[in-house]
């Protein structure tokens, strides 16, 4: 006799496609996001195959341009930005705050359909020949010269932006108005703080890129020239508007991962987080200061030197809250009772790789260095360290940590450890050589390169092959676990948090009894807050 939970409560396709349950919507997102992840990975594979040899012999330059463009568009807008918020955030936030659902369940479902629609537009652009402007759509190439499917792709990005906006809107209202009795802000899990900060960025930033890509589509369709130099239009204005969102967007990608890491590090050190309020405020600081630094993408494009200096300074400032978090996570692990289960392996990977990625960002924030390293593989390596070494490790770590809660099944830990190792080794082999290549001058977005860079590129492609195995393995054993994995108890890790107090998988309404919270939800050790010292 199986107990009623959100998975078996209602059968049939319609009950899933028309669901209002945030947990089912999270699974809908999981399916579509996984699809786009592998699509983006396919484009990456094409890039790495071409770059095995210095000559541009696998595909034409135009085709190569389409490969890196589609890789960027799909990975940024259809994987990295939605991944943790739409899958883990949607699933966990109501449970973590003791609510029955998000504030607007139907809008939550709508956001998924909007995501799928935007994805269809982009898929159409890809299948009808692709886009070759770079995921950054720089004008005037994208508005006047490119003869690829810019409008379709731009509209795909525009539509998907609304999915992001609605998710952020839902999270903000939920965290403000749906917390269980006694759950004050400073008792919230850091995962929730991270998603709240992320939602602020989604709300304030996404509309700007929405209007910007709409203007690009309008210019192409209607021949109006907002960014047209012939009319006195400024291509740099496009870059200002584009990066006003796209820089904070990278914080949309990393903040949720940081939230995951905060949770994992506590659970697997069996220790309260060190400096809870510092991490909470740092999340907000990253979100806010992250809006002030976008010009560091435009240093060499024609922006004034004085504006560049302001942006450079602010870019150094924005590193500070991230560093505070890294110190606090480290201090949490220090003298903790550490267990190296697979989620913790991903967390350790995150700590090292995010630190490297973040530090190399500082190199690029220095205008003088950026002049040499802009548009080289140094930049590519920098952002992949953060987005892949950071965000994707956070996503995978979170998926592993909460998989038993989401599915009620345990995955095979041995395979998971092996996959984590493959990911770590593969990642470093792929992207570390790119730092070297970029520093030595190899430019990005070229399908051919001078012979002296070949060794580094071959190492990178080899690493990518290992990395891809590391990514496929979890798909296989996660799927296996759904059918044949051992059933999970409510709290397989011995972790603290409201989500571990409810069964695995949870019932549709999350809790049989609304919790009343009397102290912080993640107390692994006596603390002053509960009067036990």
């Amino acid at each position: 006799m199986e107990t009623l939970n959100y998975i078996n409560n209602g059968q049939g396709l319609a009950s899933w496609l028309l669901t209002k349950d945030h947990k089912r919507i999270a699974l809908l997102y999981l399916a579509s996001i996984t699809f786009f992840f592998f699509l983006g990975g396919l484009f990456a594979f094409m890039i790495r195959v071409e770059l095995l040899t210095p000559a541009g012999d696998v595909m034409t330059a135009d085709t190569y341009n389409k490969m890196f463009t589609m890789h960027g568009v799909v990975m940024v807008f259809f994987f990295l930005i939605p991944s943790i918020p739409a899958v883990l955030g949607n699933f966990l936030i109501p449970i973590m705050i003791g609510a029955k659902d998000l504030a607007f369940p139907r809008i939550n479902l709508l956001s998924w359909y909007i995501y799928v629609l935007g994805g269809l537009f982009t898929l159409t652009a890809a299948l009808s020949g692709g886009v070759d402007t770079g995921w950054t759509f720089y004008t005037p190439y994208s508005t006047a010269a490119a003869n690829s499917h810019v409008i379709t792709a731009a509209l795909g990005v525009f539509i998907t932006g609304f999915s992001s906006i609605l998710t952020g809107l839902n999270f903000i209202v939920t965290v403000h108005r749906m917390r269980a009795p006694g759950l004050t802000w400073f008792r919230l899990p850091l995962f929730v703080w991270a998603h709240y900060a992320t939602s602020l960025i989604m709300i304030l930033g996404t509309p700007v890129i929405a209007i910007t890509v709409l203007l690009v589509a309008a210019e192409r369709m209607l021949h109006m020239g907002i960014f047209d130099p012939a009319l006195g239009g400024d291509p740099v204005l496009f870059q200002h508007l584009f990066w006003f969102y796209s820089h904070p967007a990278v914080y949309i990608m990393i903040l949720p991962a940081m939230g995951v890491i905060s949770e994992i590090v506590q659970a697997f050190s069996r220790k309260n987080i060190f400096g809870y309020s510092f991490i909470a405020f740092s999340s907000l600081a990253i979100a806010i200061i992250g809006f002030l630094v976008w010009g560091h993408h435009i240093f060499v494009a024609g922006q004034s030197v004085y504006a560049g200096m302001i942006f450079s300074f602010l870019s150094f400032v924005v590193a500070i809250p991230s560093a505070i978090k890294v110190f606090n996570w480290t201090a949490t692990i220090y003298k903790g009772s550490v267990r190296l289960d697979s989620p913790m392996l991903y967390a350790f990977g995150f700590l090292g790789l995010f630190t490297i990625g973040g530090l190399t960002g500082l190199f690029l924030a220095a205008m003088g260095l950026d002049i040499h390293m802009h548009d080289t593989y140094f930049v590519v390596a920098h952002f992949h360290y953060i987005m892949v070494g950071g965000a994707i490790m956070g996503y995978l770590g979170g998926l592993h940590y909460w998989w038993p809660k989401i599915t009620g099944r345990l995955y095979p830990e041995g395979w998971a450890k092996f996959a984590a190792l493959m990911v770590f080794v593969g990642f470093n082999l792929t992207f570390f050589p790119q730092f070297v290549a970029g520093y030595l001058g190899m430019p990005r977005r070229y399908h051919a390169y001078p012979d002296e860079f070949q060794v580094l590129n071959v190492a990178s492609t080899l690493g990518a092959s290992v990395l891809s195995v590391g990514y496929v393995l979890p798909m296989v054993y996660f799927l296996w676990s759904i059918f044949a994995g051992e059933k999970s108890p409510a709290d397989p890790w011995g972790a603290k948090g409201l989500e571990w107090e409810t069964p695995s998988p949870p019932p549709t309404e999350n809790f049989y009894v609304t919790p009343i919270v009397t102290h912080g939800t993640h107390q692994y050790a006596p603390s002053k807050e509960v009067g036990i010292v």
Partner: protein
Amino acid sequence: MSKGRAQADEYYPGPVHQPPVHIAGTHVEHTHGHHPKLQHHFDTMAQQIEASTLGMWVFLVTEIMFFGGLFMCYLVYRTASPEGFAEASHHLNVTWGAVNTIVLIVSSLTMALGVRAAQTSAPPKTQVAWIVATMALGAAFLGVKAIEYTDKFTHHLVPGPYFKWEGKHPAAAEMFYSLYFCMTGLHALHMVIGLGIMMVIGIMAWRRQFDADYYTPVEVSGLYWHFVDIVWIFLFPLLYLIGGHFTE
């Protein structure tokens, strides 16, 4: 702290304690002791309306940033060629612009009074009357815009291959009109959506769904409508009234 799990639990039973506040069990019996419009993931009507209003405000913030991108383009290009923009603005008909501004302000009044009617449990006919008035004014606004747009088409002021400008700053004029069409066009699109929303609200009001206990959709739609009005409050002077003194 490297003590084993059992000892930690000894100090720490977890953050939750009894007694229960609200039974959230499976819906065996559904006795509705609450307002029929209370959605089940909310605890009270007050929570529901607070959440809905906050949600609409958060959405309006996204709309501010959405239009804001266009205002940024306007700021940059007007700063680059102030005389060109002033010259281009002369062709716009200030009278039509002012009429539209008044029309929208009146429509905001009728909308606000419509919300108030629902708030005070006014008879459905009264509620519907205010909403219909709002819609009529919105339609009038769009009518005037249609007249203005037609004028632009006839005078070759649509940016693109057929744009013709006789004055001293043709490039700036074309830029001005690009922004004019984008900004007023986006605004008009929001008006059309607003009319659709009003239609739905009007039908709901006709069906007696709103009273002092439940008027959330009217309140929230009102917020949207007022926002669209506010955008025009800025568009009017920035597009129609620049260029110092002029003869009209």
